[in-house]
């Protein structure tokens, strides 16, 4: 049977655009503009979901996304809020959390055994006998959760945008719209956001005082202003420091940075609490109004309005005009109401009963709807119904009103101090942070004309805050009865009087929680789970506070509130990911690596080849690495080292500056020489090492490790300015490409491009020269990190690829092979060199790494010197050594971080280990006790399998090679 009404002037639906969709296998008709729930309700479908715990049938409660009674899935998205999502043609929907469909849900038996499942039952049951726990865990996991994840969810990037404005207004109700106009009239830029499909807030369903014509005027005025950007179907997800508010739409997130913020977000209608207040057909008064005025749907055929404030009288008139047979208005207040609407209702034969309540709702067959209500006299102070006299009324619906809770989440997140106003029975802002303003119902202003003024007042305050001098606006204090009731709860011995509909929490759950000692608001929340469901307490937190206050016999303000955290509504993770900007750095030779099978890996921000597996090559990565390393040992290899940090230090005090920052001496270093530059932190811990090349008396070229280049440059910049020495720094890391050619044929290859005498006598290790290679100005160094003969070239990045290619070509006859970072690791290990940050950690000092030769303690000052003086006084407790495993060792190869075991105690650990194809032995570096530092010492390593593997300390693998 259709519940669609005749054309409503305010309706959001377009009757010229009908279509159909499917719900629970049933075809349903709708109009464009309908939400899923409104279309279903219009078609007489009342069961929109099953509750989380007890699987009770549910229908419309708030119709505002303040509850999740109607949570549906289309097979892809499990978080469809049917109450507010516009329905589209051919949607195929089912309710989440059912076994066998929403009507026949087999889990509804849980409602019958609910006495066995009191609040917190899962903390007490299931843990013994322990052997049954896996069984229960499996059952509970299947039962918990709302919907099934579809692992084929497509990746649809939703790019994030940034926006900027003078004033951001949350909520386009009468207060927000009035504020927007005030601000725009003064020439400032406004963004105003509303989560509903259309602007207007309660003006679109609360028709008192010619609301709809006021709305039309406001919207018209808004359109005249170019500096107002109105965004509907968008919610403000949270408040972040300095007025950053992400606005979430289906298309993605816009991060709005405002200079001032006005929160005009309104209030959530709160339910009165009585037995079976959750049956389909029982709904908030404002939900009934939304159904009528936005979607032209009749909320129910025949029913009552139960109210604990004056709002119910308005709702009753709306229901009557929609053709509902309103049997009575039940006013829970002892004094009832002086509302002028009572006379109108009397004219329409609607009875009004004060000091009465709905004691319980009687369910229809299978508990799928309402069949009767039971009315009793009600003592509002004791919250008790007088059950001696019960009036039963047959009906199919109840509209209920008890008051409002402010939608103040963003205000709380911004640091607003709220206070409880007993006249309004609502929390209102008491102290707002700078630049944040509140207006309208969220600010405790309820009367329509005052709400418009409150918007203008907030706008004036915001503009004055921004430095634009405007006149202040006066707003009248609230007069008349409280819009919210202090305690709209009807006790019932059989319970099922729901407070939180998301989590199926009833009044006795709070009483039981308090009995167990969980009687403070934070504990109460977590033990009962009130406010922890998908609506995060929008319809339940206020009642929970009221109930706890009564249990504790304390005023509401002494109970406090729990923390409202972002996001205001659940926000898709894809939205939070956005497009995802993940910068990477590429060297000048990247193209060559790709063309030649480089296995590109992220080394921090850089992309580097770990090894090369060119097309047609059938080697494993390890085999390729070994082959590359052997090429360096027997012929020649070339590696792209462009990622090294490179810093130019220039000025009369360049050498003095280096002596101040690094551990070594540089003042007397000759031009054409380089020395190792080791960097310590103030605690004396090794941080980085590189080479300091003296190119001119007042010009040094410094290298750093790849990982630390940005950090070292930053440090040097700060230190250079603090120490007052005359020095200038330049970060050339990206400006220069670099490559190393290593191996017996290295010198021959380079000689084809350079006239420098590369003989070991003429150009020993420690030499650097500015020269030309292939007609490009570059730096040439003789190095010994990966091999005994190796040369490093630094040159302008733009020439990198060309020079590399020329060297590759010239090197072919010599067997030149490119090698990657895996081979480089192995080669330096074969040379016995440790890597800072790999073989050393955040506590390693130079004494533990045999780095004394690099430390000039006799200098006046260097970073870390004072700490080394202190450390030197203490005995060494570990030391780095090179080691080799026995040639006949059996057992699983140990890994880095495997422990050195001495007499059953931990005595150290492995920091590097690898099989060397050149030496045909397993070599590595380890921390061992100082007494084991001499070559020949033996120690045991415990591998992952638990076996002890014997190792011998060696001076260095190169010594091993020579003795072999």
């Amino acid at each position, binding site marked *: 049977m259709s519940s669609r009404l005749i054309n409503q002037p305010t309706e959001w639906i377009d009757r010229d655009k009908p279509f159909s969709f499917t719900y629970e296998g049933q075809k349903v008709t709708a109009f464009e503009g309908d939400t899923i729930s409104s279309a279903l309700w219009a078609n007489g479908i009342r069961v929109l979901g099953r509750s989380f715990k007890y699987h009770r049938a549910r229908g419309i409660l708030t119709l505002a996304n303040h509850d999740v009674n109607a949570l549906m899935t289309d097979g892809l998205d499990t978080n469809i809020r049917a109450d507010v999502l516009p329905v589209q043609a051919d949607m195929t929907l089912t309710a989440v959390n059912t076994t066998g469909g929403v009507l026949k849900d087999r889990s509804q038996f849980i409602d019958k055994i609910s006495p066995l499942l009191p609040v917190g039952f899962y903390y007490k049951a299931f843990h013994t006998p322990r052997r049954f726990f896996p069984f229960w865990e499996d059952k509970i996991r299947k039962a918990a959760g709302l919907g099934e994840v579809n692992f084929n969810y497509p990746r649809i990037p939703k790019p994030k945008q940034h926006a900027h404005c003078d004033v951001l207004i949350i909520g386009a109700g009468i207060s927000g719209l009035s504020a927007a106009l005030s601000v725009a009239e003064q020439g400032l830029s406004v963004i105003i956001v509303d989560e509903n499909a259309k602007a207007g807030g309660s003006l679109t369903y609360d028709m008192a005082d010619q609301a709809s014509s006021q709305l039309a005027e406001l919207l018209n005025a808004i359109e005249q202003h170019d500096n107002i950007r109105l965004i509907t179907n968008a919610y403000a997800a949270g408040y*972040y*420091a*300095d007025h*950053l508010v992400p606005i979430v739409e289906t298309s993605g997130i816009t991060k709005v*940075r405002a200079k001032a913020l006005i929160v005009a977000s309104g209030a959530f209608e709160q339910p009165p609490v009585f037995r079976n207040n959750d049956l389909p057909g029982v709904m908030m008064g404002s939900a009934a109004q939304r159904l009528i005025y936005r979607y032209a749907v009749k909320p129910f055929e025949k029913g009552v309005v139960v109210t604990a404030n004056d709002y119910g009288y308005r709702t009753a008139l709306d229901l009557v005009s929609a053709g509902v047979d309103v049997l009575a208005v039940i006013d829970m207040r002892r004094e009832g109401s002086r509302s002028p609407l009572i006379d109108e209702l009397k004219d329409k034969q609607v009875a009004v009963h004060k000091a009465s309540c709905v004691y319980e709702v009687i369910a229809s067959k299978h508990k799928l709807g309402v069949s009767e209500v039971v009315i009793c006299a009600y003592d509002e102070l004791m919250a008790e119904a007088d059950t001696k006299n019960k009036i039963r009324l047959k009906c199919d619906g109840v509209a209920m009103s008890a008051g409002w809770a402010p939608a103040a989440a963003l205000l709380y997140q911004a640091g607003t101090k709220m206070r409880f106003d007993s006249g309004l029975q609502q929390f209102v802002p008491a102290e707002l942070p700078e630049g944040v303003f509140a207006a309208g119902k969220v600010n405790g202003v309820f009367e329509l004309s005052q709400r418009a003024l409150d918007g203008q007042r907030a706008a004036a305050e915001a503009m004055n805050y921004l430095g634009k001098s405007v006149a202040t606006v006066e707003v009248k204090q609230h007069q008349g009865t409280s819009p919210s009731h202090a305690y709209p709860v009807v006790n019932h011995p059989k319970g099922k009087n729901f407070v939180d509909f998301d989590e199926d929490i009833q009044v006795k759950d709070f009483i039981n929680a308090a009995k167990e000692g969980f009687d403070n608001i934070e504990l109460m929340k977590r033990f009962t789970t009130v406010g922890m469901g998908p609506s995060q307490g929008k319809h339940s937190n206020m009642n929970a506070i009221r109930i706890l206050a009564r249990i504790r016999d304390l005023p509401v303000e002494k109970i406090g509130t729990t923390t409202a955290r972002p996001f205001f509504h659940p926000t898709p993770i894809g939205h939070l990911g956005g497009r995802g900007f993940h910068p990477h750095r590429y060297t000048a030779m990247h193209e060559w690596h790709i063309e030649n099978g480089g296995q590109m890996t992220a080394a921090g921000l850089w992309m580097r080849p770990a090894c090369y597996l060119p097309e047609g090559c059938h080697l494993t990565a390890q085999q390729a690495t070994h082959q590359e390393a052997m090429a360096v040992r027997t012929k020649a290899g070339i590696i792209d080292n462009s990622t090294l940090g490179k810093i130019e230090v220039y000025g009369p005090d360049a050498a003095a500056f280096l002596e101040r920052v690094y551990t070594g001496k540089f003042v007397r270093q000759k031009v054409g020489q380089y020395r190792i530059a080791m960097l310590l932190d*103030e*605690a004396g811990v090794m941080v980085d090492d590189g080479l300091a090349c003296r190119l001119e008396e007042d010009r040094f070229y410094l290298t750093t490790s790849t990982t630390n280049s940005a950090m070292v440059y*930053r440090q040097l*910049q*700060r230190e*250079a*300015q*603090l120490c*007052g020495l005359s*020095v*200038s*720094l330049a*970060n050339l890391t990206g400006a220069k490409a670099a490559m190393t050619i290593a191996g017996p044929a290295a010198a021959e290859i380079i000689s084809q491009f350079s006239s420098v005498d590369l003989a070991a006598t003429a150009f020993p290790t420690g030499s650097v020269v500015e020269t030309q290679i292939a007609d490009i100005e570059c730096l040439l160094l003789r190095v010994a990190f990966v091999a005994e003969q190796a040369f490093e070239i630094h040159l302008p990045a733009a020439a990198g690829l060309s020079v590399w290619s020329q060297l590759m070509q010239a090197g072919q006859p010599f067997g030149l092979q490119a090698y990657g970072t895996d081979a480089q690791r192995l080669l330096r290990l074969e040379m016995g060199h440790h890597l800072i940050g790999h073989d050393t950690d955040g506590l390693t000092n130079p004494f533990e790494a045999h780095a004394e030769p690099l430390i000039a303690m006799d200098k006046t*000052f260097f970073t870390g*010197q*004072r*700490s080394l003086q*202190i450390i030197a006084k203490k005995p060494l407790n570990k030391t780095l050594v090179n080691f080799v495993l026995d040639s006949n060792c059996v057992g699983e190869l140990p890994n880095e971080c495997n422990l050195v075991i001495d007499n059953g105690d931990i005595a150290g650990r492995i920091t590097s280990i690898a099989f060397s194809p050149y030496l045909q032995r397993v070599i590595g570096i380890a921390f061992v006790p100082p007494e084991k530092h001499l070559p020949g010492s033996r120690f045991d390593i415990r591998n992952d399998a638990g076996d002890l593997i014997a190792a011998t300390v060696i001076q260095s693998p190169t010594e091993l090679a020579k003795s072999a």
Partner: protein
Amino acid sequence: MKLLQCPVNGIRPLSEFSYGGEFRTMPDPDSCTDQQWAAYVHYRSGAPGYKKEWWYHMPSGTWFIAERNTITDKVSRTYLLPKMEVAV
């Protein structure tokens, strides 16, 4: 996210900056005791209130000081150290 004012480049989101630690004056290493030096290296002030902090604006390489209230997270001022007015 927070905004921070670089003294040279103006107000920017915090993501453009790198934190450089608490601003502390080094004691004279030649005359201080081992205990005084260890306290300087390892201890930091945890007391709530205004702290002087080093901050670095990454796109421009600018080092500056921010005075920040660690309870309210409000930065009262940012400035270049006088000897650091010329960037290096």
